């Protein structure tokens, strides 16, 4: 779509995208490196965290940045990561040291611990709806 962004989308559009994850869901951040305006920090890509809360629904900034309307709004999650999973600090981190990052749903995929069995994980992902239609 083109033209000025629509700042007041109709109610049904705002409600279109039902959250795929809920509080406590274990999620993995996608590890892609697309061109364009991207809000997902590099250091968080590919990392596993837990949904701390659903922060609401927002128009996609990756689209808004290029003068499109970014609709339908997508769920935005606050995802909590353990610092020791992110940084290789010499002193190490306590498990209580965490970092919250707000991430759009299209950047998240469900995570199950298959201990590196990617084939099993791929089957599960397919059964759950096939990941993301980009």
């Amino acid at each position, binding site marked *: 779509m083109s033209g000025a962004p629509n700042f007041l989308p109709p109610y049904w559009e705002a409600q279109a995208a039902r959250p795929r994850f809920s509080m406590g869901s274990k999620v993995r951040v996608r590890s892609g*490196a697309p061109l364009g305006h991207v809000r997902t920090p590099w250091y968080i890509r590919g990392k596993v965290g837990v949904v701390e809360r659903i922060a609401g629904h927002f128009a996609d900034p*990756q689209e*808004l940045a290029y003068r499109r309307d970014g609709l339908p709004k997508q769920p935005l999650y606050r995802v909590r990561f353990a610092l020791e999973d992110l940084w290789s600090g010499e002193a190490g981190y306590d498990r209580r040291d965490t970092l919250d990052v707000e991430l759009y749903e299209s950047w998240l995929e469900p995570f199950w611990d298959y201990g590196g069995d990617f084939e099993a994980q791929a089957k599960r992902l397919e059964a759950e709806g096939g990941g993301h239609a980009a």
Partner: protein
Amino acid sequence: MTQGQFSGGRSWHDMGGVFDGAPGPSVDPAEHDYALWEKRVDALMVLTSSKGLMTVDSLRRVLEDMGPESFETMTYYERWIASVTQNMIEAGVFTVEELRAKTAEIAARGATYGEATRPMGEGAGS
């Protein structure tokens, strides 16, 4: 996980967690005054956004596309007005030629900000 064929790699501005080998310079937390023109740039961003001509996302997109050199050579609001200007051209508010002509007209009024803004009915900016 496979990456898309059109991978952009790590963007230069996405530097969170990059260790440059030394503790960074301490941040000066003190407030500082803004020049009148800087406040006007801020107001322009609010005004054009409220009219649906740009978004904070399109502001940032242009800033990112300006590259790391701009952060060495331009001040904060110089980068902002460059991005707002780019966005207004994209939105069709004015053309590149209209911008050139207006800039030349303003420059001809005088070298100082006060002289340049006088025809708008403003006093000397300070």
